[in-house]
């Protein structure tokens, strides 16, 4: 019973928040507001999905915001060089390539992923600076910029194009994790790396795969930025995105020690955060206090999780 409370606690928290907000704010229960929440969560959904996979595999990728920033700049450059569609594909692959480099470097040297991706993060931020020649790059062809912006910002069934991309990506990563052999390997490697290795799983490749996936997600985030703003800037995504994604994944109930969790948990974590800040807005709480409140709520959620763990073990 307690185990179930712990396991589905995030759903309960989400439901309670939802009901409280629905009662206390009349404008909360509108399709418009739901679409807003989704829109504001677009990039975090992508990051939370890949971060879930990484954390389950027992690693962290702190470089995703830096990769996304470099990819945004690279996408703009590539569109200017090769045209729109090749440029978009190039941008996504560029993100994946940076992930591959991070993964190979870390697995080859056996560096701790936390510190290794932190170093990678600085490196890729620097790479972004170099690619943008120190400033901002813009899509030269105004028509291309306009049509890309039209796709990202335009609505289909009330939801913006960028949000559709994020939703599709989350579903694909979810299926990858839950249905494929790669997903099974990820759980095994995160649950017990040595046992997985001795069972004949190529653990290094699995880990590299996780970094590539993270890089690819960051590449997509980069393309979305380029599309939304018609430019790539060295400050496109700051590292708060990374930490918010990790916090959301943990609040959603993914074990920080690896080996267990699911993509929907990361998604629930993000939506819970979005609901909290959306609710605070609707309730007219001064934005000055919002971050503090969010931080305290995260702590309470994780502390409650720990408490449940302790009770279920005894």
């Amino acid at each position, binding site marked *: 019973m307690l185990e179930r409370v712990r396991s589905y606690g995030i759903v309960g928290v989400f439901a309670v928040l939802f009901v409280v907000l629905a009662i206390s704010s009349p404008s909360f229960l509108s399709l418009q507001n739901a679409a807003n929440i989704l829109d504001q969560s677009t990039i975090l959904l992508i990051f939370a999905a890949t971060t879930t996979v990484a954390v389950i595999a027992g690693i962290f990728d702190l470089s995703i915001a830096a990769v996304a920033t470099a990819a945004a700049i690279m996408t703009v450059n590539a569109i200017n060089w090769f045209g729109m569609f090749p440029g978009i594909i190039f941008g996504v692959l560029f993100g994946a390539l940076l992930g591959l480099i991070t993964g190979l470097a870390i697995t080859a040297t056996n560096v701790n992923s936390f510190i290794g991706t932190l170093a990678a993060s600085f490196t890729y931020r620097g790479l972004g600076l170099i690619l943008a020649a120190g400033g901002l790059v813009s899509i030269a062809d105004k028509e291309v910029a306009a049509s890309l912006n039209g796709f990202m910002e335009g609505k289909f069934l009330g939801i913006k194009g960028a949000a559709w991309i994020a939703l599709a990506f989350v579903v694909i990563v979810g299926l990858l994790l839950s*249905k*494929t*052999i*790669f*997903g*099974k*390997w990820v*759980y*095994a490697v995160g*649950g*017990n790396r*040595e*046992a*997985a*290795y*001795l*069972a*004949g*799983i*190529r653990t290094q490749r699995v880990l590299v795969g996780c970094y590539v996936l993270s890089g690819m997600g960051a590449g997509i985030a980069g393309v979305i930025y380029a599309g939304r703003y018609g430019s790539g800037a060295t400050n496109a995504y700051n590292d708060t995105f990374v930490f918010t994604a990790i916090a959301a994944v943990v609040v959603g109930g993914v*074990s920080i020690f690896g*080996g*267990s969790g699911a993509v929907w948990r990361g998604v629930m974590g993000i939506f819970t955060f979005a609901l909290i800040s959306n609710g605070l807005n609707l309730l007219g709480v001064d934005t000055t206090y919002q971050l503090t409140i969010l931080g305290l709520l995260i702590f309470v959620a994780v502390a409650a999780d720990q408490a449940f763990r302790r009770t279920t073990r*005894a």
Partner: protein
Amino acid sequence: MTASPSVLEARNVVKTFGATRAVRNVSLDIPAGSVFGLVGENGAGKSTLAKIFAGVHSPDSGEVLVNGEAVTFRNPYEGIRGGVSMMAQEIMLVPDATVEENVLLGNLPRRGIFPNRKEMRRRYDELVELTKFDLDPRAKVATLRIADQQKVEILRALSQDARLIIMDEPSAALTADEVVRLHASIRQIVERGATVILISHFLEEVLSLSDRVAIMRDGELVRVGATVDETVDSLVAGMVGKSLVTEYASVHRAPDTAIRLSVRHLQRPPAVQDVSFDIHAGEIVGLAGLIGSGRSEIARCIFGADRLSAGEILLDGQAVSVSSPKQAIDQGIFMIPESRKEQGLVLGSSIADNLTLASLDKATTAGVVSGRRIKQTAQALAEKVDLRFTSIAQPAVSLSGGNQQKILFGRAVDVAPTVLIVDEPTRGVDIAAKRGIHATLQEMADAGLAVLFISSEIDEVLGVCNRVLVVHRGRIQAEFRPPYVQEDVLAAFFGKDGKGNA
């Protein structure tokens, strides 16, 4: 014996975990100043009972009396304050701190914010005066061998005024000579008035050390009596509930003449030095020796888990390259590793996932895993190895040691290798499970597999194997064939050759 007062009494103690009745209505007295043995199969409730005494668990009903007074320890800390201390199966010391610091940890004498070294030494010397333990108080604990680390734990317990020290499988991780030291330590502290509850799978140990012994089965107390009235056979009979013959079936099917596995001049210094041997199809070859002699390292090299610096591995006469476990498995070599918890199982994952871990690709079409097929395969494997569980989806961590080991054998059946390496498969499993494992190994050999069997228990190696190789300092020291002379084999452990020469 009846004259000595009880240091601890249990009255109708009951403890239930979910649907499992771990301890059922147990009542017993533990006389002061004695060694009290507690034996039973895995899952019989020994550890749970001991943890109730120490305050790790609270009983659902019943009473525990320490020195005649009813106590309710809510946690181990209260247990320690009440004079009951439990040495866990894992050593709980600060590796970078010194012996004396570890002994007095939690109660360090100090002067202001600084440790009071003089007082620390005085208190340490007092304790050593009691026990006559011979340790360097300034040595870092990380540099000590395990038997000496256990002494530090015992000293710590005594420093906390423990009158009752519970030891749960203290000799499980020790080498033969360390066991001798541990036994001496236990005798010393008991002579000086402490009481020890000794939980152990090593029945000879219990017989030689304890004054009284209690047998548990399925959470119930079978009987308590003076140790002098018991023998290995009577203890085993009490544990399993029926009289079992403890001798091994010594008749083996003669192995085939075909050599299945050959290793030539394997090198991975310092652990593996110029190791060569053959295993025939249908043969079980034992790799024996002290812990740290290089047995496991040889196995890991053959399985590709550690890289060889030189040497050759031949399967059915063909040289094969084995540079990773994946490659080894693809070529028909499988290993059940030494530590099922650290190296074998993904403890948080389901039984089904663990059973099929090495052969996931069989249940995969175009990258997509069929959950149904995994379940079917797992069910079939579980049946083959006689795995006991309530749901195939329950996590591996919820199983007993013997059943966890069966998962790994199930994995081996699934991989269907031609060479099977098993490293310490019976460590910490109960007698019934042990027999099951031996039978499984024999079946696999009968099916034509070449089996390399590693164990620290010499009886077991001699009972199960067609041939025994003794490893000493990374080399094959001697080879033995039946009929075995146990003393000769043991002598080889310590560097003698097979003929008794040093």
